[in-house]
């Protein structure tokens, strides 16, 4: 287990993505609306797009066709290339049963020490 001080707390904002490097590996950080900081692998698990170019958003739901709801603002990361959606809460895709495709974000443990963000790898 290695601990890496990667940036300052104020560098990580809700609705935004901050990329840091641990060794040569990119990691992107975002703050959930709850205040928690998330750190995820910086490459998309689909085809490897750099997630720092992605967008943090909410997502849609619907019980019936053409009646969209919207929620989870700040908790969804969409890949800049094909737009697959992942939850920043648990790293899982928003689509069900993605059997056969190892589609989930790699989550890293994050600790805050003073005004430093520490990522554990």
């Amino acid at each position, binding site marked *: 287990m290695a601990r890496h001080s990667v940036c300052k707390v104020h560098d990580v904002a809700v609705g935004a993505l901050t990329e840091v490097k641990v060794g040569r590996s990119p990691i992107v950080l975002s703050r959930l609306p709850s205040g928690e900081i998330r750190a995820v692998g910086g490459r998309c698990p689909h085809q490897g797009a750099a997630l720092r170019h992605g967008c943090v958003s909410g*997502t*849609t*739901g*619907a*019980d*019936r*066709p*053409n*009646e*969209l709801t919207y929620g989870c603002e700040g908790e969804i990361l*969409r890949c800049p290339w*094909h*737009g*697959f*959606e992942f939850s920043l809460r648990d790293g899982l*895709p*928003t*689509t*069900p*049963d*993605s*059997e056969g495709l190892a*589609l989930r974000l790699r989550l890293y443990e994050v600790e805050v020490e003073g005004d430093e963000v520490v990522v554990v790898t």
Partner: protein
Amino acid sequence: MRVLDADVHESFGSIKDLAPYLPEPYRGWIASGAWRGFSQPFAYTSPGLGNRADVRSKDGSASVSDYGQMRDQLLDPYDLGHAVLTGYFYPTGLKLQYGLATALAAAYNDYVAEHWLAKDKRFIGSVQINARDPDAAAREIDRMAAHPQVRQVLLPVVDDIAYGHPQYRPIFEAANRNRLMVAFHHTTFAQGPYGMGLHYMERHALLPLAMMPQIISLICNGVFDAYPNLRFMVLEGGFSWLPHVMWRLDREYRQGRIEVPWIKKLPSQHCRERLRLSTQPTEDITGDQWMKLIDLMGTDDVLVFSTDYPHFDFDDPNAAIPRSLPETTREKILWRNGAEFYDLGDAPKSERPLEAAAE
């Protein structure tokens, strides 16, 4: 091995046979020849003029109106456990005069009940409707669902209807409340993306391209999700395209779910669970290729045997599904997948308690 044939085309001898089943004024119109029925907008090129050449209809059309002939050529010699009557007279082809079209569908249903279903317990019936008037179609479904041999609604694939459109919901509602399945069959009006082509061969090769959009439409517009008890059967529309359609839809869903979040399962999962494809016309592939295809589909639950009797591209129950397939898979294609789709158990439905929902 037991055989269920999912696609058998019964007919009348002449459209005037429907007159006694029609209310006025339509009875008079049809009896007097005010409309002489659909005629296909092309010439058949097969030796039997659209039929197998050993099946002659009285009027020379591509049809069979004689139950005895069907029994002697199909039901008995192949010892079919069940044959699903799917018709080929689809009033939805009328783009005007909806009242007439709806009345014709009802008349045809009554004609088939009397002249076909009543004659043989092996028959499974389809409800014919005028899909252009979905509320009237729903009433016809409610009416015919009480018939113990009727197990499905037949939706004709024409040139301008994608059935996922919200306006057709009453049809699926009615099928669902009556516990009927939904089958799709092409028509003489069906088209590929750029029309019918310039040759019969072209038109016939394009038919699968009229079916794929129906599945895409149903899934994208939430019909699979809205009615978890409904199952869907594509008749005579090819089957080797299914892996592509499943994979493509899954990819589209992963990248575009945000627009269609009412889809709650991967499209491929919807297809494997509740879409069935009839096998005729089989493509002439080897047993190994059948198994590769089934492997790509991810299940051997999907394929359901059909002959398409009396049409020229008939598949023989003894020859069309290679004997080199594993016995269990061959049995699923020839019997079990269809029997499960129609919820037959081991007995003809006519001998089982009526299941149509009463509400």
